[in-house]
């Protein structure tokens, strides 16, 4: 009679995680089946290979390669810094110029605005007579 074993059961049997009764039962099934015997054998051999792989050989030039890369990086950052410093001077100069122009313009506007305000508030008209009913311009026109 053929009995099917699940992968889970085979693995539990392999790791001896089954109960005593189950271990005996599964063992008898495996012993009677060439298929399960070979599968279990394959699992055993393959799993044993873990950690048996050869290690890679050291690279004797690794330190030099690292130092070269570090130097390259440093040079690149220096290049970036000098480029940034050069450009930043130009940017700062332009910014100062713009700020000066803008502040000058704003100060001028403030003066202009205050002038307008004062002319609106203290707008006076010249009147000719005492009652201040007739304007100077109208009197002059009548006389002419």
């Amino acid at each position, binding site marked *: 009679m053929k009995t099917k074993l699940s992968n889970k059961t085979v693995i539990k049997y*392999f*790791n001896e995680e089954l109960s005593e009764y189950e271990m005996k039962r599964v063992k008898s099934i495996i012993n009677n089946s060439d298929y399960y015997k070979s599968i279990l054998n394959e699992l055993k051999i393959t799993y044993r290979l873990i950690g048996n792989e050869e290690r*890679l050989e050291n690279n004797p030039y690794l*330190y030099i390669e690292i130092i070269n890369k570090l130097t390259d990086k440093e040079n690149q950052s220096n290049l970036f810094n000098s480029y940034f410093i050069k450009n930043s001077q130009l940017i700062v100069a332009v910014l100062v110029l713009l700020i000066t122009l803008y502040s000058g313009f704003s100060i001028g506007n403030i003066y202009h605005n205050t002038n307008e305000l004062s002319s609106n508030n203290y707008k006076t008209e010249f009147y000719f007579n005492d009652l201040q009913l007739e304007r100077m311009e109208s009197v002059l026109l009548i006389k002419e």
Partner: protein
Amino acid sequence: MSDEELISRILSGDQLYFKILVEKYQSLVLNTCFRFIRDKSDAEDITQEVFIEVFLSIKKFKNKSKLSTWLYRITVNKSLNFIRNNKKRKFFKSIEKKFKNSENTELQIAETPTQNEENVLKQQRLILLREAIELLPEKQKTAFILHKYENVSYKDIAEIMDTSLASIEGLIHRAKINVQKNILKKAKVLKKVVSNK
């Protein structure tokens, strides 16, 4: 020379001691990278990057943890980042490799008829094992590789992965079961190949 002494000498500006550090830990970094990436030249590139980062940030290293733990952490992070960034590239590379490998094995068999069948079988089993490990989720893979290939203790793995000891135990147990499952699934295919030969 102890690691603490080595670090203090490097911090004082003596580059010779950085060379000693590189020589002392090169194998650890290179092989850990290789277990994750499975490509020698890429592993060498990542190794360089790891040591560059060590050089640039050694001031930040506090002697609270082991130097090797700190190195493992940088190595694992760099390797995982590399894998994440190169998933597509890796996919095409693996296809290319498969074609090359099949051509090569055929050539090898033809050129050296006396080659031991066992060696071929062992190589196939190693490939099967690598594939079974590669299928693991990221955290399980990291814990499993560090424990099984680098013999790092559970406690140190917990520190490297910044997690608890209990969760590391769980991760490694689940990884072990999953690797065995993956081997079982593929063993059937391998059996067919063997029986054909």
